[in-house]
């Protein structure tokens, strides 16, 4: 499943992200996921006759933060109406930025060093949610459809890349990096499964060396990074085979069928809509003043690229697998656990490995408090918890929450604080003076003998590495 030899793909992505504002883009209704149907509605977001939109300052600010993070110019902008009939759109037009978007021209540098240009990142409103009722539960074959307008009017930023992406893996990396940035800026929670970040891919192919772009297809319904990568790969393969066989690609919108692993026609260009864009007369031009732009820039938190650099610097000379771990903890947004643990005295390699392996594997890792993770890692570092016990406490934290020391105590891990471990080692050493002398003379194999006795004494709760460290430090005294 990949593009034919002798062809290359050209991909541009359009990413819609819901903004994490308190209220909707043009009204004071709560921007909340999962409320009872049609409870976050008012005359404005229901498009009632006589209602008027009023722009949300918070949404503008998050859009500016996104633009700043992507290196865009933040410009005076305006809103247009995009006209088409659809029942999830209460006014039967969408208010969106058209020829004067707020953010223009930026760049996204991917972890592998490649760059993708950003054409624009503009503000627009989301639609309501349609549920199809009837035999299939899907739009085709449904008997009727039900509309909930809670999501109607939720602010979106649409980020449009230049067609700079040349592989499915790069498309995935771009979306992953963008998601990390959106989460970092606080603009979005980046949850693709819940639809708060939605990706459409424009894919075309051409013979290697051709200067002109091929005809493109737009693929919708990419609900995960994995789907994105698969769909782009599949579409490039489909188009390259079509062209190689002497066929022609038809410009159209295609739908990714996750189960079948194929893209299927949704709508051809002939059916394309005439949106009759025109300036939204109910809204005035948006002019972000310089002090506002400066403040947004100043308040921008550390972005993923900078955070990767920080982590790599902590590690000194990272191995290739550590580099992968750095990438993954930043992508998951759990890298602060590593840096905080290190600044609390935990060994960087241990901190990275625990967070990238153990913490990342937990379902809901991102919900863990950084301080709690740091506490667990510090306890382990100090020998108060074994590696196995540390994992168990982390799992408890995700599942039940609470204070990590309390959780350790409840599980009966608490007796092994650093001083009691020291006392046990001293006791064992004193009990076997001959073995201790031989060990001190260089018989390293005897370390396991002492560990075994310490384990026996502590009913297996001591951390073997900590015991060995304790023995070594006594020997060198």
């Amino acid at each position, binding site marked *: 499943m990949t593009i034919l030899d002798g062809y290359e793909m050209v991909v541009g992505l359009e990413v819609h992200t819901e903004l994490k504002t308190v209220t909707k883009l043009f009204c004071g209704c709560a921007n909340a996921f999962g409320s009872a*149907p049609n409870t976050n509605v008012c005359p404005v977001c229901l498009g009632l006759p006589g209602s008027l939109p009023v*722009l949300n300052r918070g949404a503008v600010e998050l859009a500016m933060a996104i633009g700043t993070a992507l290196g865009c110019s933040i410009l005076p902008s*305006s809103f247009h109406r995009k006209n088409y009939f659809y029942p999830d759109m209460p006014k039967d037009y969408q208010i969106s930025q058209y020829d004067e978007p707020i953010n223009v021209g930026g760049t996204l540098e991917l972890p592998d060093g490649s760059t993708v240009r950003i054409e624009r990142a503009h503000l627009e409103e989301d639609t309501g949610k349609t549920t199809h009722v009837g035999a299939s539960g899907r739009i085709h074959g449904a008997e009727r459809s039900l509309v909930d307008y809670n999501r109607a009017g939720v602010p979106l930023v649409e980020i449009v890349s230049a067609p700079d992406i040349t592989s499915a893996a790069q498309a995935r990396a771009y979306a992953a990096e963008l998601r990390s940035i959106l989460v970092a800026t606080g603009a979005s929670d980046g949850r693709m499964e819940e639809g708060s970040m939605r990706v459409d891919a424009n894919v075309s192919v051409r013979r290697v060396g051709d200067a002109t772009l091929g005809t493109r297809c737009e693929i919708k319904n990419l609900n995960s990074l994995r789907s994105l990568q698969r769909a782009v790969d599949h579409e490039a393969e489909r188009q390259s085979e079509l062209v190689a066989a002497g066929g022609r690609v038809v410009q159209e919108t295609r739908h990714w069928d996750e189960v079948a692993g194929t893209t299927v026609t949704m709508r051809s260009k002939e059916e394309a809509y005439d949106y009759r864009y025109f300036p939204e007369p109910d809204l005035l031009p948006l002019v972000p003043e310089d002090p506002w732009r400066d403040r947004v820039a100043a308040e921008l938190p550390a972005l993923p690229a900078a955070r990767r650099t920080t982590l790599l610097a902590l590690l000194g000379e990272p191995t290739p697998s550590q580099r992968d771990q750095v990438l993954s903890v930043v992508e998951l947004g759990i890298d602060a656990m590593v840096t905080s643990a290190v600044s609390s005295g935990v060994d960087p390699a241990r901190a990275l490995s625990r967070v990238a392996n153990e913490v990342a594997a937990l379902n809901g890792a991102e919900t863990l408090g950084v301080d709690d993770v740091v506490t667990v890692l510090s306890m382990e570092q100090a020998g108060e918890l074994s590696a196995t016990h540390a994992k168990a406490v982390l799992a408890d934290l995700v599942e039940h929450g609470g204070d990590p020391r309390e959780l350790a105590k409840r599980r009966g891990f608490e007796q092994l604080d650093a001083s009691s471990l020291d006392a046990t080692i001293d006791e064992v050493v004193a009990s076997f003076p001959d073995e201790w002398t031989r060990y001190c003379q260089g018989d390293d194999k005897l370390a396991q003998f002492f560990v075994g006795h310490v384990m026996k004494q502590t009913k297996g709760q001591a951390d073997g590495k900590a015991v060995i460290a304790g023995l070594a430090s006594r020997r060198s005294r």
Partner: protein
Amino acid sequence: MTSLSREDVAHVAKLARLALSDEDLERYTDQLRAVLDHARDLEAFDFESTAPTAHPFAAAAYLREDVVVEGLDRDEVLNQAPAVEDDRFCVPQIIGDAP
């Protein structure tokens, strides 16, 4: 500006979700053509140097603070709807996906 045809009127009626009988189409074409013919007087002016006005007094946007304002009571809203099911607005089957 070109002259308005019956096909043009049929096309805009479709875009606007209106059904026209043949007789309607005939009549509307004549009437709309008269308005558009009158609008030919706009051709006489030089527009290249003139920016369009979308709004009479284009000051900077008025912005709302991001604070929740109480919305509408769902029952009052749904009471006005032609068809409701499961607290949602009910519409007949949709043929074709959203754009």
